[in-house]
């Protein structure tokens, strides 16, 4: 399948390296998806207070001077403008963060050894065959599914495999053994992930009140 095997000492250090590689795509994105909603919420609260204060001011003016639309516009514009500028700034900041991340990845990949390059290539390129996934899903639903569903499902399955393999490697290291992974590592990994709630299981009927 691949090139000749490397020395065992490399493999030991390798495991940590490839785990970092797999963690990196997940890490920054976690902070991004978590960070941005919090920021908008904080700003949104400020906006509401500003808009309410302005509405109070304007109502004290002569109402016949402004039509309903103009009043709404003059109410909305400062708040809406500020929101627009904020989201634009956030988008620019996010793009800059992406560019930094891309640069750092390029520097990292350029300093890989050959074994690491092989592994990274396998990590990026391996994927589930779309036809088999589509056939599997359609055999379960009985109806046809769209292409996007197949893409999403294959992507999630690959992340799932990554989580299990990483946990199994943790278990293997903790037990003081070496890869290749054995079924006992896999089973212990699944047991741990199940307690964390990462493995969906809808066979067991939950009894809430009794």
């Amino acid at each position, binding site marked *: 399948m691949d090139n000749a095997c490397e020395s065992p000492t490399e493999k030991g250090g390798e495991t940590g390296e490839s785990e970092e590689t797999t963690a990196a795509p997940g890490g920054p994105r976690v902070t991004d998806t978590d960070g941005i909603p919090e920021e908008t919420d904080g700003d949104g609260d400020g906006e509401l207070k500003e808009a309410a204060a302005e509405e109070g001011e304007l109502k004290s003016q002569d109402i016949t001077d402004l039509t309903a639309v103009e009043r709404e516009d003059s109410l909305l514009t400062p708040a809406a403008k500020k929101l627009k500028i904020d989201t634009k700034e956030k988008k620019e900041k996010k793009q800059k963060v992406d560019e930094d991340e891309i640069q750092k990845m390029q520097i990292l990949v350029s300093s890989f050894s050959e074994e690491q390059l092989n592994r990274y290539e396998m990590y990026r*390129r391996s994927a589930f065959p779309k036809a088999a996934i589509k056939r599997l899903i359609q055999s379960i639903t009985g109806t046809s599914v769209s292409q996007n569903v197949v893409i*999403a*499902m294959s*992507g999630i*399955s690959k992340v799932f495999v990554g989580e299990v393999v990483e946990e199994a490697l943790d278990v293997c290291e903790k037990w003081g053994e070496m890869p290749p*992974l054995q079924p006992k590592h896999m089973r212990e990994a699944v047991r741990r992930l199940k307690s964390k709630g990462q493995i969906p299981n809808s066979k067991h009927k939950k009894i809430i009140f009794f």
Partner: protein
Amino acid sequence: MSEAVFDISIHFNFQFEEENEEIGGGAEGGQGKRKRLFSKELRCMMYGFGDDQNPYTESVDILEDLVIEFITEMTHKAMSIGRQGRVQVEDIVFLIRKDPRKFARVKDLLTMNEELKRARKAFDEANYGS
């Protein structure tokens, strides 16, 4: 309807705890007589995620059963929410919302797919003009 759904999952016998990984044995381990769907791809994936270059066949089998069970669970759940009886992308995104890694991955994949479709369309239109 839900009983039929349950029947299917029991029939496939996904309880991998009962599985015996006999090498070449005739025992019904996990999938029973089902052919291995993802052996090659899973081997590459395991190597990419940090395992040995040649992972054990039993581990690959366990992973394949896990993946099929995962996909089956997600499909059943997606069928029960949103539009009943159909699996749609929105349902999958909803089910995945609590898991940051998977959620981010799905968002990226769908965004990239849209971009690629747009690029291909623009490319085809450019060709059509010339």
